[in-house]
């Protein structure tokens, strides 16, 4: 029963969030601020992790494909497809759920317990639209860019491993990452990323927005935001994979 109440409250909050904003100039400013907070500030961590994951996938694939009948460029193919199909969308989304989701829930939770959200309400401003909508727009716009950067850095990580660790000749790797490339994989990765962005920002906002109590409850909501976002990302991954890769 509590689950249905929560889903109902979430949908009502989303209805309030997606109403026409009071001022478009304010919305624009808020979106720019959020792009910096949820997007630009996450670039470094995404790039660092992606380059190492690209390198690790290259080494592990080489370790597992030791059959001389299999061409060496398959390592490039595997690295590319792993990054495109799973890592750069789903794994990066899980990473961002931890970084961005907890930050959104804590920010809104603190605003709630210090009555800043009530202050907005009394002023006649729609707090949901003012505070949550810019976060959702910023994430849906910037997370796909992070995904593309992650793919690029992962491929670079694999290339550097071939070059420096002598796993396979770099020319084979370059040939492999271009071999049998389906542009649909990019669309698939982008679609997943946009859905994940919506899940992370809206679920974390919901959990922060309705916090009651003090600092302890804000901390709990932040943890719950990460856990709930991660579980929903995994579920959405299953549904989207089944739907988009038929």
């Amino acid at each position: 029963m509590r689950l249905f109440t929560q889903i109902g409250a979430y949908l009502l909050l989303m209805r309030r969030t997606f109403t026409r904003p009071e001022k478009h100039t304010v919305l624009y400013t808020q979106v720019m601020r959020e792009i910096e907070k949820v997007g630009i500030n996450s670039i470094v961590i995404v790039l660092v992790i992606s380059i190492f994951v690209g390198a690790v996938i290259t080494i592990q694939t080489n370790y597992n494909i030791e059959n001389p009948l299999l061409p060496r460029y398959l390592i490039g193919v595997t690295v590319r497809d792993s990054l495109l199909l799973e890592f750069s969308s789903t794994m990066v989304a899980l990473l961002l759920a931890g970084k961005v989701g907890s930050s959104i829930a804590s920010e809104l939770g603190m605003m709630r317990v210090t009555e800043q959200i009530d202050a907005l309400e009394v002023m006649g401003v729609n707090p949901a639209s003012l505070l949550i909508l810019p976060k959702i727009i910023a994430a849906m716009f910037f997370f796909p860019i992070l995904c593309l950067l992650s793919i690029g850095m992962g491929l670079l990580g694999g290339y550097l491993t071939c070059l420096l660790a002598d796993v396979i000749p770099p020319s084979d790797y370059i040939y492999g990452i271009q071999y049998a490339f389906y542009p649909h994989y990019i669309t698939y990765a982008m679609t997943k990323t946009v859905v994940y962005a919506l899940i992370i920002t809206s679920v974390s906002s919901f959990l922060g927005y309705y916090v009651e109590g003090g600092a302890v409850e804000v901390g709990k909501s932040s943890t719950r935001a990460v856990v709930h976002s991660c579980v929903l990302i995994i579920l959405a991954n299953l549904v989207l994979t089944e739907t988009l890769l038929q």
Partner: protein
Amino acid sequence: MIEVKHIFKKYEDTYVLNDVSAQFEQGKCNLIIGRSGSGKTVLLKSIVGLIDLDEGEIWYGNHLFSHMESRARQEIRQEMGMLFQGGALFDSLSVEENVMFPLNMLTGQSFREKLERVNFCLDRVRVSHSNRLYPSELSGGMRKRVAIARAIVLNPKYLFCDEPNSGLDPETGMVIDRLIKELTDEFQMTTIVNTHDMNSVLEIGDKVVYIHDGCKCWEGTREEVLHTDNKDLNNFVFATRLAKQIKG
């Protein structure tokens, strides 16, 4: 004028507001007093619409606020200013941006006009030359003053203050009380102040409503507070041994 009629609010099986009715007059400081946990804050938050009632009516002049759609409520809310217990200033905005915020959201004024109004309000609450500071850099008293400046920046008809001098020393608390009184007289606002501070009652209470266990037990003026024979109110007003001795 604001009028509440027979309002009830229940949490689980406990009534926190039980058939409360009162009138809060324009141009006066109306005080809601009572012990901690008596239902003062729930009453104030119900009046501004932050808490939905189970039963009863809240009127702003001729408008039945408690039964309005949220869009219609927003129009009346733009005539309200509220000072929250902790100030509720936006941490990420400077003093100037905090006070300018309602103007940015709800008016179409130019930046110059908005800045003039912000500076006027900050001067009025005696917080000049602090425009660039952030809430974390302000003292408790300054935070309250900036919050008052933000509450009056749109020239509201209604001003609500939830424990305006909580956490302040008695002298600073009195300064804040006097400021609220001055602003009420100057702009002829309907002001409702929630407090349990007897200094505030005696200093600014044009009209006093006493709440006890969710019920309205008494109402009158600040002069009448001292001479009432209401037992609960007497216990509240003359809580200290010294006060009891003075009363005799």
